[in-house]
Every structure is written in structure tokens, then in C-alpha cells.
């Protein structure tokens, strides 16, 4: 159908449209008009992707000078494929409707085996790829450097974007890294020797270039051709490479010295935490390495690798990592911390020293993106509370909106179970974690649910350790045996192969009527990437509130930083983080309007306003006061009732006019009024 969105003609490749899609496009258009950034939350399964694509493509066609390119970032390869599929549909619709051949070029970067290096791809109108291509400075430099300023960047499934930013800037160094780095340095040394004998002119040429400094990069940045690289700070560009590392031999010697220093730092017996200035002072005192050459380390290494014409960069990942670390540590005096742990917390007897160079400020990695591109849109099914993302990512959005799901029938049923049948409060909080009564009641809940929920149930625990404890205890009490009469049990483990095997068998059991339960962990692979459509997830049970492991030093440092820099209290952040993961977990069950599922929050703390209020609006609005503090029995009764209601025939006609609209219905006054209420501005 063809839509008119505030004067913009949008081709929408389906005959029907959801009201919230229309509303979403309205907001998106306003964001583009204002040339600003946006944060938009819309439940999964309501056609976010196609709404985004239709609107932005229409915008590009209408105002080719305003928006030249769409950069669509998604998280995983299957998601990227889904986007491409929708895009293909849209393009077919365009050529059918307009009759002209398609002059739009779209490009998807998924993996190396699909990579095309034809120069024309630089002019693609739409680029679809993974977050890392834009956020990770190592890759962004190669791939995304030349993207035009007038692009629209969309981050889909962006609820974890701050963690992606942080991961892309953090460096972990172990003994193994250092050993491999040592080998790299040796190889470099040998190659330099060889080249010196055969082609000394080349090295001289490089030396001359370095004296001139990194002028080229500086010119490029001023003229705004490239996306800036956060690893390459502005100041370096103004200066020449310092004399101490200008010749190749000197630089290799410098690297050796740095490496020896890191090795000595890893020989610790106790945990060390220090700031970057402290680290710099220490390195100066111990091995007389100044801050300045350290800052040029990454760039100098690149130059050397180019000069030596080394083809396989992957072999030199260790030394690249170390040199990036050197540059980062000497550039940022804030936003990073260095933690050296002699052993892992879980295995205090095995020495396995790790140097964590941890980024605490996600805005550092994403800053160039916000600065460079005129519109950046962050969107996901779960972004609540919306206002925290602009704060931690440090940007000012022009639109922030959360959309609800219009439903012809209430297909989601969030229930908060606060008590067992014996009135014992259910909670995964630390004090009652080992409590026998709580574990028994949790087991009872799962047992009862396994008897009333058809096909698949997914249960999420707060951590692997907690899951192991509970499952062991259930086994001893015979609860597992009883559950297995109703459904088979599968468990997610940290081993990826084992987990995918379990998943496969789980789906098989759901398919052939035996029924199955998947026990998994919030923040695990299952909670993030796997959709449990229809019968694969008729109920999700969230055992406890999935707080992050708060004893971790890295987390503590980050919380402290957030408090000092952004005035976000530790508790607020922890709750926000826990609730977004809980929302992600329970959201796995509902992947569309014809789908239905129970969402069971088994912890009495969910009933509190500060927790409940942080759930996405489309879940929150279905939590009634009556479902806040249920016992296990009440939950079972409500679930039975809900599942019977949902099993009644549901046809497309039932949705039409309510949650599914034809063009005529969409244009009616009354509906347009209703649509304005869908978007909830913050």
C-alpha cells in the first residue's frame, strides 16, 4: 500500500499495516526532518524492520540530497539476513508499483566469504552490517571510514549497545597474549633485518614519511572525509612521530621493552587496580617509557606492517592488540581502569594472571558515530527506561518514544509470583538464595506449570552457579523426576556445542508433543539470540531478578564511574541492567501478534514500582494490580484460564480494524486519533 506520512509518499510492501507501524514511521520521519538522533522502543514482532526500511528508503528517494545513505546495524548474521529479505520485498514492491527498474543498491556485510570488494559498493544506498563494523575501532577503520556524513545510522536490537561499546574498547591481556606478542616481535625483527639487506630504501622512505607526521590523516579529518577513529586521538595528528620510535629497529626495541614491562606486571600475587595516569607513571619509573611514544604506538605499528608488506595481518593480532592498548592507555586519562588479577575468582588456586584494561564509558566508542552522522536511531523491543540510554551514551536525542502493541486479543500474560503455596516469599536475593523453602517453592512452581502449559517452557535463572545449585537441590528432593513425567528437561551450559544440541532436542520435543523445558541463564546465549515462537515458548519463567554479578571488580569500577561522571546511582543502574535482561528473557516468548505466551516473574521484588516501572511499556500495561503478588496456585489457575482463552480460534478478520489495518481503515479520522496515543513520548 502507499502511505502518506506527513506529506511523504511511503511505499509499504504489505496490504495491511499495524497501527503502531504507522506511528513508528511518523516518529522516525520527525527524527529525520530534525536531522537529529532518536531512541525508539517498539515490541518485537510488530514489524520494526520493514517500517524502518520503507520510511528511510522513501525519504532517500524524496530528498536525495538530505539523506544519501542508510547504514543499518544489526547484531547477528540471521538478523542481517532477515533485514536483507525484507529489503528485497520492498524493492520488488517498488519496481512493481513504479514500473521503473531499480537503481537502488543495497549491500550486506555478513562474513568474509560473502565479501565483495568492487569499488561500486562504496556508492551503495543501503548498507547492512554488524555493530562491530561501526563501533569496534579496529574494524571501523577498515570498513566504515568513508561513509558519508549525510547518512542515517540505525542500530537495531540496541538494548545492549553500551556493552558492545565497552567491549570494543576494552583489552584483556593474558600470559598467552604476551607470548604470542613476543613471537610477533621476533618475526618483525627478522623481517626488518631481511628488508634492510635487500631494500633499505623502503625503510628510509618510511622514516621520511614519519618525519612529516600524520599530516594526511589530519587533512582528511579536517576536510571531513573520514569517520574518526577513537584510537587515534586528535592531538597526534598535529605532531610528528617522536624520534624514539621513528626507525624500525628502535620501534621494535621499544615494543620489547613495553612487553617486558607488561610481563613483570602480570607476575603479581594480589589484585591491583589503578587508573591510567598511575599506570603511566609506573611505566615511566620502571622502564623509562614516556607517554608520548606510547600514544603513537598503534599508528606506528600500522605503518611498519604496511612498509614490511605483511599480508596476513591476522597473525599479528597479538602485537596489534598490545599497541592499541598502549595508545589507549596513554590517550585517555579518564573512562578507563586497569585491573590486574592473579587468578580467577572461581579458581583461586590456579594462577592465571589477567590484565583487564577496561573501558567504563560507552560514550567513548560511540561518540564519533554521533558526531559524524546527522541521524542516529537506536531501536529495540526493550529499551526501557528510555532516558537512561542518552545519559550513558552521552547524546541528545530529538525524539524518544515507546510504542505499545495494539492487540485484538491480549496475547501476553505477565504474572508476578511472589509467594509459594505456604506463603514463603519467593526471591533470589542473596540472603535467601540457599533457603531450602524458596528452592522447594521454585521447584513446585515449575512442576505445576509443566502440567498446565503445553509444549515448550523456557526457564531463566540468574546465573549458572545459581542454576546448578537449584537443579541439584531439585534432584535430591525428587522434583525433577516429577517434572519429567510432564516434560523433558534440557539445560543450557557454557559449552556452545552442548547448548545448541540441547536446543535442537528441545525443539524436537516441542514439535512432537512430548513437551520440554529449557533451563537457561539470563545473559546467556539463549536469552539474547534465540526466539521461541509459538509452541517453542508458551511460557517463560524468570526465576529471580537477573542482577549482574556485583562482586566483579570491573563492574564496581564502572558503577563508581557512572556515579561520578553521569550522576547515575549504582542501584539505579543495576536495576536498569537487571530489568532489561529480564525483559529480554520474557520477550523471547512473544514474537508477533498471532503468538501468545505467559510471562512469569518469580520473585516478589518484581512487584515493586521501581522494578516494574522499568519494564517496557508494552509489557507493563498488561500487569494488573491483581497479578502482582500471586501464589503458585493462583498462577496456575490464571495460566489455565489464559491458555484456554488463547487456544480459541483466532483469524485474521478478528484483527482487522483493531490491530491490523487496511489503507481505508488507516485513513479514518478516528483511527488517526487513536494512533497518536500509541506513541508514548518521554
Amino acid at each position, binding site marked *: 500500500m502507499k502511505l502518506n506520512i506527513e506529506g511523504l509518499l511511503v511505499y509499504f510492501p504489505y496490504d495491511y499495516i499495524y497501527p503502531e507501524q504507522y506511528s513508528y514511521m511518523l516518529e522516525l520521519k520527525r527524527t529525520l526532518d530534525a536531522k537529529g538522533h532518536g531512541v525508539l522502543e517498539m515490541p518485537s514482532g510488530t514489524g520494526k524492520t520493514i517500517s524502518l526500511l520503507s520510511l528511510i528508503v522513501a525519504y532517500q528517494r524524496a530528498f536525495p540530497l538530505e539523506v544519501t545513505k542508510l547504514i543499518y546495524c544489526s547484531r547477528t548474521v540471521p538478523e542481517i539476513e532477515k533485514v536483507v529479505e525484507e529489503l528485497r520485498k520492498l524493492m520488488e514492491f517498488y519496481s512493481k508499483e513504479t514500473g521503473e527498474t531499480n537503481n537502488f543498491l543495497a549491500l550486506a556485510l555478513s562474513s568474509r566469504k560473502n565479501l565483495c570488494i568492487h569499488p561500486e559498493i562504496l556508492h551503495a544506498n543501503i548498507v547492512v552490517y554488524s555493530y562491530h563494523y561501526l563501533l569496534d575501532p579496529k574494524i571501523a577503520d577498515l570498513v566504515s571510514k568513508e561513509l558519508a556524513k549525510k547518512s542515517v545510522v540505525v542500530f537495531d536490537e540496541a538494548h545492549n549497545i553500551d556493552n558492545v561499546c565497552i567491549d570494543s574498547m576494552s583489552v584483556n591481556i593474558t600470559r598467552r597474549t604476551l607470548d604470542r606478542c613476543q613471537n610477533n616481535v621476533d618475526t618483525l625483527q627478522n623481517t626488518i633485518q631481511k628488508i634492510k639487506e635487500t631494500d633499505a630504501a623502503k625503510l628510509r622512505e618510511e622514516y621520511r614519511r614519519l618525519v612529516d607526521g600524520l599530516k594526511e590523516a589530519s587533512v582528511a579529518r579536517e576536510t571531513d572525509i573520514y569517520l574518526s577513529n577513537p584510537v587515534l586521538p586528535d592531538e597526534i595528528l598535529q605532531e610528528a612521530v617522536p624520534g624514539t620510535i621513528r626507525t624500525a629497529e628502535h620501534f621494535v626495541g621499544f615494543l620489547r621493552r613495553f612487553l617486558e614491562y607488561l610481563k613483570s606486571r602480570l607476575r603479581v600475587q594480589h589484585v591491583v587496580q589503578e587508573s591510567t595516569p598511575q599506570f603511566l607513571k609506573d611505566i615511566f619509573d620502571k622502564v623509562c617509557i614516556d607517554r608520548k611514544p606510547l600514544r603513537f604506538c598503534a599508528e606506528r605499528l600500522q605503518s611498519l606492517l604496511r612498509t614490511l608488506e605483511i599480508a596476513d595481518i591476522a597473525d599479528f593480532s597479538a602485537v596489534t592488540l598490545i599497541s592499541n592498548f598502549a595508545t589507549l592507555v596513554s590517550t585517555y586519562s579518564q573512562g578507563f581502569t586497569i585491573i590486574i588479577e592473579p587468578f580467577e575468582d572461581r579458581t583461586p588456586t590456579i594462577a592465571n594472571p589477567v590484565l583487564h584494561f577496561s573501558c567504563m564509558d560507552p560514550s567513548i566508542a560511540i561518540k564519533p558515530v554521533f558526531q559524524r552522522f546527522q541521524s542516529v536511531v537506536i531501536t529495540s523491543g526493550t529499551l526501557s527506561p528510555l532516558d537512561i540510554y542518552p545519559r550513558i551514551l552521552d547524546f541528545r536525542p530529538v525524539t524518544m518514544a515507546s510504542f505499545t502493541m495494539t492487540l485484538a486479543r491480549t496475547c501476553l500474560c505477565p504474572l508476578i509470583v511472589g509467594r509459594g503455596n505456604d506463603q514463603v516469599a519467593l526471591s533470589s536475593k542473596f540472603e535467601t538464595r540457599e533457603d531450602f523453602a524458596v528452592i522447594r517453592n521454585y521447584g513446585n512452581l515449575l512442576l505445576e506449570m509443566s502440567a498446565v502449559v503445553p509444549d515448550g517452557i523456557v526457564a531463566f535463572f540468574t546465573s549458572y552457579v545459581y542454576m546448578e545449585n537449584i537443579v541439584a537441590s531439585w534432584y535430591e528432593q525428587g522434583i525433577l523426576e516429577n517434572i519429567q513425567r510432564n516434560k523433558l528437561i534440557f539445560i543450557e551450559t557454557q559449552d556452545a556445542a552442548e547448548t545448541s544440541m540441547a536446543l535442537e532436542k528441545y525443539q524436537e520435543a516441542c514439535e512432537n*508433543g512430548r*513437551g520440554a523445558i529449557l533451563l537457561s541463564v539470563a545473559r546467556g546465549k539463549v536469552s539474547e539470540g534465540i526466539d521461541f515462537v509459538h509452541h517453542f515458548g508458551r511460557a517463560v519463567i524468570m526465576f529471580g531478578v537477573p542482577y549482574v554479578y556485583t562482586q566483579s571488580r570491573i563492574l564496581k569500577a564502572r558503577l563508581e564511574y557512572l556515579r561520578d561522571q553521569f550522576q547515575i546511582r549504582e542501584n539505579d543502574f543495576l536495576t536498569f541492567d537487571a530489568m532489561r535482561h529480564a525483559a529480554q528473557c520474557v520477550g523471547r516468548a512473544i514474537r508477533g501478534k498471532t503468538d501468545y505466551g505467559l510471562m512469569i516473574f518469580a520473585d516478589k521484588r518484581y512487584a515493586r514500582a521501581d522494578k516494574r516501572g522499568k519494564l517496557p511499556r508494552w509489557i507493563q500495561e498488561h500487569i494488573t494490580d491483581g497479578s502482582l503478588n500471586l501464589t503458585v496456585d493462583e498462577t496456575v489457575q*490464571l495460566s489455565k484460564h489464559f*491458555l484456554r482463552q488463547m487456544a480459541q480460534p483466532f483469524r485474521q478478520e478478528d484483527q482487522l480494524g483493531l490491530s491490523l489495518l487496511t489503507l481505508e481503515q488507516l485513513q479514518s479520522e478516528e483511527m488517526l486519533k487513536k494512533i497518536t496515543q500509541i506513541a508514548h513520548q518521554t
Partner: protein
Amino acid sequence: MDEEPERAKRWEGGYERTWEVLKEDESGSLKATVEEILFQSKRKRVIESHGQVRLGMMRHLYVVIDCSRSMEDQDLKPNRLTSTLKLMEAFVEEYFDQNPISQVGIIMTKNKRAEKLTDLAGNPKKHITALQKAVDSVCVGEPSLYNSLSLAVQTLKHMPGHTSREILIILSSLTTCDPANIYELIKTLKSLKVRVSVIGLSAEVRVCTVLTRETGGSYHVILDESHFKELLMLHVKPPPSSSASECSLIRMGFPQHTIASLSDQDAKPSFTPSVSCGPGLSLGGYFCPQCHAKYTELPVECKVCGLTLVSAPHLARSFHHLFPLDAFTEIPEEEHHGDRFCQACQGELKDKSVFMCPSCHSVFCVECDLFIHDSLHCCPCCIHNQSGP
């Protein structure tokens, strides 16, 4: 657990939140709207019946009753098993009333096994006695869809192609314990043109959705006991037969009931090979026109020569399914300017709407409309006009 005060109280089940649709009329009375709701639900069933389609008149239906642990659940009173068996009795009565030349068999599944409670037969009494006995059976273990279906299919596949082969499963459990891949069996069922329908007592199970979709049956989940009854009664009407099913002429015998007169010297009480009431001696009976075997009841398949024996009224009763009476048109009372009395019961037309036969334009009240469609299957006024001069 039933005492907990909560939203979904059992005793409210029958009228799912009807108060939300209630509105007071001018005098402040609710009566009219309650009647409206009842009226709508009555009316619905009539309208839903399909028009001119080929129907499978000779039906062979296996009813599979789940007797697994979950049947002990007390959400139907007194428990699921008792409630189901009670409704089944009513179903069997109604089934033979509407489909006199069809047959039914009952299978029970529990403890991963499936057993025949009764074989395919055309006599309601036997089934009803078996059902009454089954009330005391213990519910244990899991049901097995696979075993039940394959047990039913073993018999059904030998049934002639012009009859409809049906399986109706009443499934309470949400799990099934199968010895082999059920999807293979579904393929077999499909190729044998066996139609499988499922009535779920708890929730929608994926494998049943696939099973019914593939074999062309229907899948419903009950809301409460009255809904259960309604769903079960849907299966009383013969389903539209698939276009692929064979058509063939079948031989049938129409024996007369004869009582040997006592004055006749040759008259001797003779032996009846009937299964239903047990072998016995009687004077009168139906004699098979082909082999002169004697039966006390019709319809029956002759044990000796295999001829189907029916009486003419039996066929006639099945006949109305083929030519269903058209639904009467509903006219609001204000727009109707004719008779103020129902043509059938001669009562005054008081309801909000009246019903008019599309062919003879006679008007009827709601009750008569239902009676005509459910029991008479023909419009009395049309018949009257035909027989007149």
C-alpha cells in the same frame, strides 16, 4: 486451591463476564439483554451449518478418550473423566439419532498404551454401558497419541472407500508418549483419508494442530463444561466428504418387521444372531431379504451375508443433512408488517426479531425457528403448501 478468590471462578465459567456486555433497557431492567445473549448463542449454531455440500453419510468414527493422570483434574466437575464420560453418553445417543447408518468405536489411552473399549458398532446401548462402566477406571500415566491412532487406523483402513473414516480425540494431557515418529503416522493417516479431530481439555498442543490441519479435521479447546458439550455436539453432524472419496452404489436391505402368527403351525421361536442384546429366542424380528437371517434391531450389518439392513426412516433421517433447510432470514420486529402470530406455534411474536422462511415467507418465533432447524429439518408451511391444491 479452589477456594482462592480470584478472577476466573469456576462457577462463573458458563457466562464468561457477560456483565461487561450487559446494558440496562429504558425501564432499568437487565432481562432483555440477558435474553439477547442467550438468543444470539442459540442462533449461532443454526447459521453455522453449511449449505449444499457432499456429506459423508456412512460414518465410521473412533472416539479416543484420554484416561491419563491429567484426567483426574477437577476443573470439570466432579473430575475431567466423569464429566467427559457423561457427555460422551449424550454424544453417542445424539450421534446415532442423527446418523443411524453410521458406526462408532471407543478407544481409551493411558499409561502409554491404547485399548479398545468397544469395537466399531452401530448400536448405542453397548457403547453407553461400556462408558458407564469406565467411570470407575483409574487414570494413570501418560496417553499415547501414536498408539491410539494406529489402533484406530488398523480397523478404519479396512472400511470401504465410500464411507467416511474419522477419529475424534478427547485429549486432556499436554504430553504424549510415542514409540515412533508421529509425523510419519500423520502422513499415513492423510493417505488413508482418515480425518482426525481433537478436542483439547486444557490448552493448544502443537502436535494436535498439525495433526488436525494435515488430516482435515478440526481442533478446539474447551473453555468450560458447556463449551465442551457444544464442541462435542459439533461432531454429531456429518462432515463434508472430501471430493476425492469414492462414490459407489451400495446394496441395502429393507426388511419388514414380521411376527410369526401364533396360529401358524410352523411358527417356532427362532434364534437371533444379534450381538447387541445377546443371542436369544423370539418370535418376531427383521429377516434379511438375502439370506433370511433374523435380527431384532435395525440398523445392522447382516452377520451372514454382510448386507446392510436399514429401515426407510433411518435413511430419511440421514437424508436431511444432504438438504439442510435454509436459514431463515432475521427481520427486526419493527420492520415486519404481517402476521403478529408465529405460523408454527400460533403464539404472539414478542421478541425483537422474527424469522421468515425464504421460500414461503411464513414468519416464526425464535423457539420455533430453532425447533424447525434442529429437529424437523423442513419448513411446515412449505410442506403444507405443497400438499394443498
